């Protein structure tokens, strides 16, 4: 099946996420869409990004397309292949990581993330657990989450806080012993959310093309505010889209081909 003539919403999510990576950032990244975004940033506007991967990999020249943090493709020509302690301890907890990519089954109003367990009337559903997620949320200065926008994924409050966002709101991180110098950006197929600097709650900062605030709220378990000057996510520059498709995930291991922006749900 040929690539769609435009671009898929998933591609735009990766491209938008990449825009939040700054040149020179030390970025803590797993595999999947986050690694695509970090790699895309590195190959476009942020050549000096330093990727670190928790298995002990520092500054690799990632080959397309790793499926695991222990995939040899993610280790290619790293400057250091070492230990989890060096990465999670001596870089992350030490305060040297600028940005962390994180996923999870639930993210709540205050950006807390659950990747441990979901409780429902039918019983509990066990998830993989923290991994390095709790460590990232505890020690990165900025978190970037890429996720599908579904109501069940955005509850008022997580069933279990695996990775701390702003916890209960203003001052809560500091009270818990965490740094308050912190920010969260969530890129979804409907919008870009970010924490309100005053209330710490997630609010709508940008909208995916053709998506309304109401459409986002309909798929969100809490009522997100709207940032001043909310605008539409900019379309991808053609050359950036080309890099993503040709160099970052050429075999479309993660990029689905069956969803163009026009076909995406509204």
């Amino acid at each position: 099946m040929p690539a769609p003539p435009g671009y898929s919403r998933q591609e735009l999510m990766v491209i938008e996420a990449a825009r939040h990576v700054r040149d020179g950032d030390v970025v803590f990244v797993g595999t999947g869409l986050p690694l695509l975004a970090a790699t895309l940033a590195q190959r476009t506007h942020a050549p000096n990004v330093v990727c670190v991967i928790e298995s002990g990999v520092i500054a690799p020249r990632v080959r397309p397309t790793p499926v695991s943090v222990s995939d040899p493709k993610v280790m290619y020509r790293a400057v250091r292949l070492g230990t989890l302690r060096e990465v999670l301890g001596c870089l992350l907890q030490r305060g040297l990581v600028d940005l962390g990519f994180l996923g999870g089954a639930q993210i709540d109003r205050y950006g807390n993330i659950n990747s441990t367990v979901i409780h429902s009337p039918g019983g509990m559903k066990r998830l993989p657990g923290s991994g390095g997620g709790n460590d990232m949320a505890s020690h990165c200065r900025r978190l970037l989450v890429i996720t599908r926008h579904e109501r069940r994924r955005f509850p008022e409050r997580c069933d279990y806080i695996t990775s701390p966002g702003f916890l209960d709101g203003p001052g809560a991180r500091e009270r818990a012993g965490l740094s308050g110098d912190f920010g969260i950006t969530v890129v979804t197929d409907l919008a870009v959310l970010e924490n309100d600097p005053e209330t710490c709650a997630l609010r709508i900062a940008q909208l995916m093309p053709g998506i309304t605030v109401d459409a986002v709220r309909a798929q969100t378990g809490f009522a997100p505010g709207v940032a001043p000057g909310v605008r539409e996510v900019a379309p991808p520059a053609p050359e950036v889209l080309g890099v993503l498709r040709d160099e970052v995930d050429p075999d479309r291991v993660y990029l689905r081909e069956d969803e163009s922006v026009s076909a995406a749900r509204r």
Partner: protein
Amino acid sequence: MQPRTTPRQAEKVMTAAEAVSRFVRPGSTVGMGGQNIGRCPVALAHEIIRQRIGELTVVGCNLSISMDQLVGAGLVRRTICGSGNLERFGTTFCWRRAIEDGTLEVEDYSHLAMVTRFLAGEMGVPFMPTRSLLGSDLLRAAEKVAPAGGLGGTAGRTAPPTTPHPDRPVVIDNPWNPGEPVVLVPALRPDVSIVHVQRADAVGNVVIEGFATHEPEMMRASRHVVVSCEELVPNDEIRAHPEQTTVPFVHVSAVVVQPFGAYPTSTYRYYDYDPVHVAAYQAAARGGAGAVREYLRAHVWQCARFDDYLQRAAGRERLEALRRAMQEMV
């Protein structure tokens, strides 16, 4: 103090069957090497399954296919880890099912907190601090057990508080900055760790290439370490590159020579992972208890040796293809 069942300088090369029967006991706490689809100790875990050694506590950072197979075989009572999954290939389904069924106990940590527990173990101290876990439910589970008020100082000596759970963190004030909470995690010292490595010599000097995850700390924290290796190298080769020795022989109890000992997961510089067989196992694990038993029967219990499994699951050509795939990459 390490019981010296094997003299430290002795040659320690033995079969997987011998190593497992000597060092893994019912009820043992087993440290698990590898991560996700990389360097899982598949051969050694198969041997535990073959010998049906049960009531295990399996510990590590990311626990993956080998843990899941031990759980699927009904040999695990408890896990202590940071995560259970195979990333792109899905979660560890036997593990998930056992937790949801209530037949498996779990202690949840972050990866850094687990490494910190092993770091305490290898350094010979009873605990280590971390600033992870703060504010999260990973910690709240712990605080119920060990209220911070019961800790520290001479007060503890005159009126001993309830002792915290041996596998859960506690919180104290930073003595140098009162009011700043710091998490202490207890040392974790596995009875035996099982780790698949690239190279070892006969006395147990170990060389790990590529990512090393939590293994150096875990191995040095363990009472015994059983390694399987792709290649047995002469002691003189170790001594020619002493900076490259990952863990010296003093910490190692047994060396099992088993090429492709991590299959279907990868061994850096030796062979890539096999997505087909990983997916095949995941299909069985997702399929439920019956499918898992069938998988284990075909791939473990009906295979007297790991090489029989390699033949059945992959075959020589497939293995050579994985070897070439890795060589193109490094």
